[in-house]
């Protein structure tokens, strides 16, 4: 297991949320989107400009900006990151 953040997750791969590094409003927003420790997240596709990226979270497709995804620490098996 290597420690990474969600913005590093490659399209088509799944990771599990380890912790949220942000505080305040950003943290509230991420949790409201269903990103709690233990939640599996699939990076589904990237928008044409590369940001945001659409993630599958608890059955819904959620677009996160890179600045937000960076705040989410994930666990994943080797090789799932760029």
């Amino acid at each position, binding site marked *: 297991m290597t420690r990474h953040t969600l913005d590093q997750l490659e399209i088509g791969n799944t990771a599990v949320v380890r912790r949220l590094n942000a505080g305040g*409003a950003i943290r509230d*927003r991420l949790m*409201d*989107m*269903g990103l709690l420790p233990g939640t599996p997240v699939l990076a589904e596709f990237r928008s044409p400009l590369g940001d*945001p990226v659409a993630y599958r979270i*608890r*059955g819904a497709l959620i*677009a996160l900006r890179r600045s937000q995804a960076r705040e989410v620490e994930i666990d994943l098996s080797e090789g799932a990151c760029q």
Partner: protein
Amino acid sequence: MTAQTVKLCETCPAYDASALKRLGVKVGAADYVVALAGNPNTGKSTIFNALTGLRQHVGNWPGKTVARAEGGCDYNGRQYRLIDLPGTYSLLSTSVDEEIARDFILFGKPDVTIVVVDSTRLERNLNLTLQILEITDRVVVALNLIDEAQRHGIQVDARHLSRRLGVPVIPMAARRLQGIPELLQAVEQVAKGLYATRPHRIHQFGAKLERALNGLIAQIEQEYPGLPNARWVALRLLDADASIEQAIREHRLGDLNRDVEASGTEKAVPAEVVA
């Protein structure tokens, strides 16, 4: 929803036409105010239109509701004012149009709040549902899109969910007008206090936090006499919610006249939400 669909429905046998009169916008002094809340795209406007006979824009984005719409209906001789709210994922981390919904749910003093949930994404939708159950016990859950759930092989045990949440849960396929009579009945029962809800609540605070809360609540009530949900506001202040702090500082807490015009123009993002 088109006017045609509404007409069709009046002839459909499941519809208790004698009990429901759609009043459109012609609603006078209503007996009850009913808010339609829920995550985006769960069918709030579809239900609103079925009840009022109005044609509030329905559809996938960009038809989403960005301002609140009002209409009325008469059910069993009582007048209901219905408020169709923009979709929101949360009462906590709100975007600008979500704030309109949040403010009405918290400060608009609805007699009943219908929380419209998407049966195919129940887990996600329960976040807002539980937040609303924290602040009011007059709630009816509209378990909408059960036709979609069935198509995906998902079965939701509405009775069990109702027991766990402590409020009525009505399975619906609002686009086909399924469940509308049952929804009306549940709203009536909760409005009249005939259904004793026991809302599921998570918060159990220690004595220390309660003391801090009570001190803040007293100050908030002094500053904003009659403000509903001062306790919720106090909790947000303790949680350092910058938007609530600012609203208090600018003396616009509970000010419900900040609706923005429906614009329908937003940048295309290939997903449901930009968080």
